[in-house]
């Protein structure tokens, strides 16, 4: 059986990912996602 990645690596990566998420949120990305998601994306549904 191959050696597994230790759980502490997962926890460190989770902390980095959470940091990215918070940074992006503070940078206004969540609003950009909202603007895209709250209106009909004609391209996404094949009408654009």
């Amino acid at each position, binding site marked *: *059986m191959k050696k*597994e*990645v*230790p*759980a*502490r*690596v*997962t926890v460190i*990566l*989770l902390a*980095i*990912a*959470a*940091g*990215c*998420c*918070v*940074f*992006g*949120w503070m*940078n*206004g*990305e*969540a*609003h*950009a*996602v*909202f603007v*895209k*998601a*709250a*209106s*009909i*994306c*004609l*391209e*996404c*549904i*094949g*009408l*654009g």
Partner: protein
Amino acid sequence: MVSRFRKIIQAGWGILTNGYAAGFLPGGPTLYSGPLKHFCVPGMNCYSCPGALGACPIGAVQAILDGRHRGFPFYVLGYLAMAGLLAGRFICGWLCLFGLIQELLYRIPTPKIRVPDRADRILRYLKYVVLAVLVIGIPLVYRTELGLGVPAFCKYLCPVGTLEGGIPMAILQDSLRATLGALFRWKVFLLILCVLASVFIHRPFCKYICPLGALYSLFQKVSLVRMNVDTGVCIDCGACGEACPMNVVPCREPNSPECIRCGECTEVCPVKALSFRPAGKRKNCKEEMSG
């Protein structure tokens, strides 16, 4: 037992994340535009579905990359990394509505196709190409005359958008129905192809095309949810490999990037050597006895 429970969770999650009933009323308000749309759902779910309460993560990545926001998608990729690190492809197996639809189609009683191993191995890399080229590459690099990027995956390939967004919207809105053209016909063709393939092959979209599955598979070996093989108990009978719908042999590669954590293997194992457990909690009778 696991299979039935999983179907209930999949269906429940699909209903919960597409629960904006007012969106389905003809002539009513079109899309939900409340605060939940700031957040992505973990599975493939078109945000242009009339009932969608959250944002599609793959659509969101392209929206950030496509030039209107002009930045690295820290928020969405951070969110997807968190989801992948917490659960890996467990999300594909338990929280994806399109995965459930494919599984239900596969239950239609017809002769089934097993893609030859060599072709299967090569085709599985296709989803990484889709992720790199259509989800990241083209939206990042290509610009129209107006300086805007193109959400290439959503626009040219995604059958989820056609099924959950395009077709319902075309039915509900007269004004949109008048705009249907070649692109819509192309996407309906792809959707039909995907539906037909799903009748004969188990989850073909997930195996070969889905960029979200490709992204989560990168986290499979480091995610908190892992599969454990008790090597002291396993008799290497091959029952788990035969039962696996994703063509993995769980007793040899329990944390394969292709495993969607459906749990079918844990059900069929005659000696119960396979189990889910959190990272760092490995169970091995042989090691326990020798230790």
